[in-house]
């Protein structure tokens, strides 16, 4: 489904990603872990098409298409979804109006008729239940004045509404208490199928008890320096990142 080859990216001339290779197949869950500043969010942003980042080398193929050639909106329409580490507050744009516009633009790209108000509302109701999000929250401006947890929950709600093929969750678990974490994970697990894939970017092993990954990768200094199964996450939880840093820095210095 997704094939990343030798991906290099920089921002304002300074390199952040230094040759990422990653293959993801339909039905898989990949966790990406790594210390702060290692480039996890950068990778997520580059995949979603944020323009500040310049891809200097490498390629990303998503379902046979050159992803890097597409605009951010076309990537979303092709089925890529990024749950933001820091969702943006947009005063004056209602959550409902925003989602309806998004869904109908995605549908129109795929040659489907727009959802009418009734169908849209019943879809909203169904997905709201899934992530246990309050109607009141959605009648407000998008993310405006939401708590950290409410924002994260809203990201998963949007994911549920848009039913993406590839979901990238960028530290969706950070700042969540155990109840919110359970709700968010249930939502993600519920949306999992043999046809879609998930990249879970996280700091904490805790999330991986709920969303069980098929593979765990460690990103450090813009490279995947170690890959393994979920046992690797447990090892990291126990030992921290220092041993990995030493391994990498020891051989490169």
């Amino acid at each position, binding site marked *: 489904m997704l094939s990343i080859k030798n991906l290099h990216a920089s921002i304002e001339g300074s390199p952040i990603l230094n040759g990422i290779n990653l293959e993801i197949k339909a039905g898989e869950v990949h966790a990406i872990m790594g210390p702060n500043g290692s480039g996890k969010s950068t990778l997520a942003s580059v995949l979603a098409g944020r323009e500040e980042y310049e891809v200097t080398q490498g390629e990303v193929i998503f379902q046979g298409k050159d992803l890097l050639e597409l605009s951010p*909106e076309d990537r979303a*329409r092709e089925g890529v979804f990024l749950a933001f580490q820091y969702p943006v507050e947009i005063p004056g744009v209602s959550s409902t109006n925003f989602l309806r516009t998004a869904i109908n633009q995605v549908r129109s790209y795929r040659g489907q008729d727009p959802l009418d108000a009734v169908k849209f509302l019943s879809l909203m109701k169904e997905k709201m239940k899934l992530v246990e999000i309050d109607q009141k929250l959605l009648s407000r401006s998008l993310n405006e004045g939401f708590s950290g947890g409410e924002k994260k929950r809203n990201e998963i709600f949007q994911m549920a509404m848009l039913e993406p093929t590839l979901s990238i969750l960028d530290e969706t678990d950070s700042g969540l208490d155990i109840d919110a974490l359970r709700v968010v994970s249930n939502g993600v697990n519920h949306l999992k199928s043999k046809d879609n894939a998930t990249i879970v970017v996280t700091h904490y092993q805790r999330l991986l008890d709920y969303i069980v990954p098929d593979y765990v990768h460690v990103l450090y200094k813009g490279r995947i320096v170690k890959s393994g199964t979920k046992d690797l996450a447990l090892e990291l939880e126990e030992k921290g990142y220092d041993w990995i840093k030493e391994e990498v820095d020891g051989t490169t210095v």
Partner: protein
Amino acid sequence: MTTILKDNISENFLAALPSIKDDKALNLLKDQGLPSTKNEEYKYTAITKKIASDITDFHQASPALLSDQDISGAAIDGLEAYILVLNNGILDLKHSTLPVSGFAITEIADSTTAPFHTDDITNDSFMALNRLSYLKGISIHIPRNTVLDKPVMVLNFIQSTAGQIISPKIWIEGAENAEAIFLEKTISLDKNPYFLNGSIEVKVGSNSHLHYYRIQNQSKQAIEVNSFHADVSKDATFTSFVLSLQGNMIRNNVTLNLNGSGCVGNMYGLYILNGKTHVDNHTNVDHTQPHCDSNELYKGILGDSSRGVFNGKIFVRQDAQKTNAFQQNNNILLSEDATVNTKPQLEIWADDVKCSHGCTTGQLDEEAMFYLQARGIGKEQARALLLFAFAGDVIDHIKVDAFKDYCIDLIHETLGTNF
């Protein structure tokens, strides 16, 4: 007697007047001339220079031939309103549909028969010029305890083929407990340059509620100065709303005198500009009595090489305790060549006052753009959503739905987007 004028433009104006009907205004104009950019109040708006370069015929424009189509063409979809037609500033009764009761309208020849004066003209030579120039002013009186059942739509038709100066003059008085909404729209009938120098004076009686909404969407050649003064009495409310979209150079002076305790003065403005349009909003609210509120919100979206100017003066006099004064000016620049100059000016002598103000000027929020795009919303649509959200809280103050929808349509048109 010979007098020396400060600039030859005022001389051109005076030479074209059929008679001098107000000595005080004449002396003021002779003494001060029309403002150059050396005048602090006109620092960013070289309107006198603009008049000098674009206007060739300083006579008052003679009334145009208005057809029924002109009137129906100016109608707003779904709007139920009385119609007051101004033809180059002069009342056109034939094309007007006015309330049959609770509404008196008279023509005023000069300031000796003026119903009232809200302000001293000594600090504004454009107002003095208007007082010398208007051909027939209009005085509207809404008697006490009258609530107009429909808004009054003022259609301000401009045609400047013979004479390029238009000087409308309107007085509106709402006596005690009166309620009325005025809507105004200026229509340029041709593309000749003109100088529209209007003056509106409003007296809001105690416990009255008057609102005046305007749309400035004129030809690209239009030069306008508008002097708008309202005296607001005890427990009364007055609202001014101005939507500025197109013109060459527009200067709006809005002054609210909050003269009675417990009154509310609102000033709302939205300027959405492209091309080289220049719009300057100077506002002034004067709190002289206790327990009054003023709410001021002006927002601008500026594209191409357009220019916006905002200056907001708030005075809170010593007796005006328990004043709430709110002022906000926010701008979004869509192009590198667009500029905004914004300046709040607060002078507060009372001590028990709640006063807040803020100005911002920035670009469209890139983070928000990316967030919307990352959900599949196209760039154009995302931009439109954000801009409309930005303008929305000004538009929301319009109480007449059909007029509000019309403003929204015009905004879409100006921004070249569909929401």
